[in-house]
């Protein structure tokens, strides 16, 4: 046996090299260069500075844009009273319940539709009809059926989310490499084995990507539902601010949404990395 086989070494990037360089190099997690980070910080500082200057100097009326200080004190007051945290928690809870319910229905259904043509034929007409409907168009019907309580908000999130999860699931299930399915069957795998060992793990990255996109959509659904009819939640908070002419409160609500959705995204990314350890080495 040749030395080429024996002299395998692991280089810094974790890629094993032998005689020839590896065709795919593991994605080295490169940090952004410092000067680019500085530019991002600077650009935020400039915009905040302009906001501060234009409101302090009276270039812009506080009726249209409150001072940054007002927004901060509004946020502090709402935090102290506990109202803000309650609103954040209520919205988050509605999003999570509606989103999880949508995932629990749409992921299995999508997989079945992708692998079994009759199921696809049965559900396709409804998917086509329901897909163009924005979730707010479900508000009248859901209010009639469910009232204006929690279940109605959850239903709105569900109706706005499940179709996207379904479409992503179908798409990524269909894209599983048929060669891998062949290889599995050639190694003695039955239908259930192919499903568990090939189709599910093969579709998982696409399904998770779809869930991440849909989570942001679920948030926009809950906010529109809360603006129309809710006692609490970030949507209701923003709408109250508007009714009371309290623009600072509106901005506090908007800022909270951004932060919460960003955090949710980061959390989803961490979960993704934990669930898909092999993806780190894929595509560089």
């Amino acid at each position: 046996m040749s030395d080429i086989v024996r002299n395998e070494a692991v280089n810094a990037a974790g890629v094993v090299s032998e005689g020839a360089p590896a065709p795919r190099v593991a994605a080295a997690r490169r940090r952004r260069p410092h000067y680019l980070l500085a530019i991002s910080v600077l650009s935020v500082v400039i915009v905040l500075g302009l906001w501060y200057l234009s409101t302090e100097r009276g270039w812009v009326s506080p009726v249209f844009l409150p001072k940054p200080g007002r927004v901060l004190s509004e946020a502090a007051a709402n935090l102290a009273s506990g109202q803000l945290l309650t609103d954040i928690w209520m919205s988050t809870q509605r999003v999570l319940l509606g989103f999880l319910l949508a995932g629990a229905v749409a992921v299995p259904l999508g997989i079945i539709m992708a692998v079994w043509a009759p199921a696809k034929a049965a559900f396709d007409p409804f998917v086509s009809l329901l897909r163009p409907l924005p979730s707010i168009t479900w508000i009248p019907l859901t209010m009639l059926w469910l009232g204006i309580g929690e279940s109605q908000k959850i239903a709105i999130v569900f109706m706005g989310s499940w179709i996207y999860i379904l479409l992503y699931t179908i798409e990524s299930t269909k894209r599983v490499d048929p060669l891998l399915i062949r290889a599995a069957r050639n190694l003695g795998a039955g239908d259930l084995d192919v499903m568990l060992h090939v189709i599910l793990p093969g579709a998982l990255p696409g399904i998770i990507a779809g869930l991440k996109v849909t989570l942001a959509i679920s948030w926009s659904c809950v906010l529109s539902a809360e603006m129309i009819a809710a006692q609490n939640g970030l949507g209701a908070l923003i709408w109250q601010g508007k009714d009371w002419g309290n623009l600072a409160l509106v901005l506090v609500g908007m800022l909270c949404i951004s932060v919460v959705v960003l955090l949710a995204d980061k959390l989803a990314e961490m979960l993704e990395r934990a669930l898909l350890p092999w993806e780190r080495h894929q595509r560089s």
Partner: protein
Amino acid sequence: MTGASLPILAACNVTKAYTTGKDHALVAVENLSLDIHEGEFVCLLGASGCGKSTILNMFAGFTQPTAGEVLLRGKPIRGIEPRCGMIFQSYALFPWKTVRANVEFGLKMKGLARSERRARAAAFIEMVNLAGFEEHYPAELSGGMQQRVTIARLLAADPEVLLMDEPFAALDAMTRQVMQEELLNIHERSRKTIVFITHSIDEALILSSRLFVMSARPGRVKAIIANTLPTPRHISVQVSPEYGALKSQVWNLIESEVRRHGAQAAD
């Protein structure tokens, strides 16, 4: 390996036609017959487009012949046949499974206990010189190493026949040579029947005990050549006069087919 015994694999008057988009039938293989005996290392050699892969796919049961029959130990192959294990040119490793889990896959499908799987997989990983890489994912390995994982995976599943569809085509020349020697060693040790597709005369001569020269599309067996080069074989056989004679004999057979196929492609 007497001619009288039942061939392990056989194709009897096999024709395979594909219907392409515009009702055109593309005849990949026409009226092809061949016998392969247990323990042989057979190379199917031919220009691209001579239906070599089609034959292999029929032996694996991935496709069925349009006419005629493919037989495994005298019985027709009707569905995907795990007794004829396939090595794909593009490896077809499961990217979400580690080297160990990939190699264990066939054993798991057979319902072996975990400890048993571990032990057997370890032996085959050792055999293809990948000990120490059990917990790596395929994407962390070079092409040559990935191909060795597929070989270990297939050997662990213990099929009766190894079907190899240009398995080393994607490798660089040096790695390919190492892999060829490895494969000869594996064949020596396991005495498995191997059907190996290649369009490299050198590869066919180094590896095979018998080689089938294929005609251009539609594919047929043009000549069967017993490879008389001494075994166990080493790369150095390439400088022997017998090798040169055999190579020019094969090339004479194949040259007209290559030109004919080139003319077809130009239509």
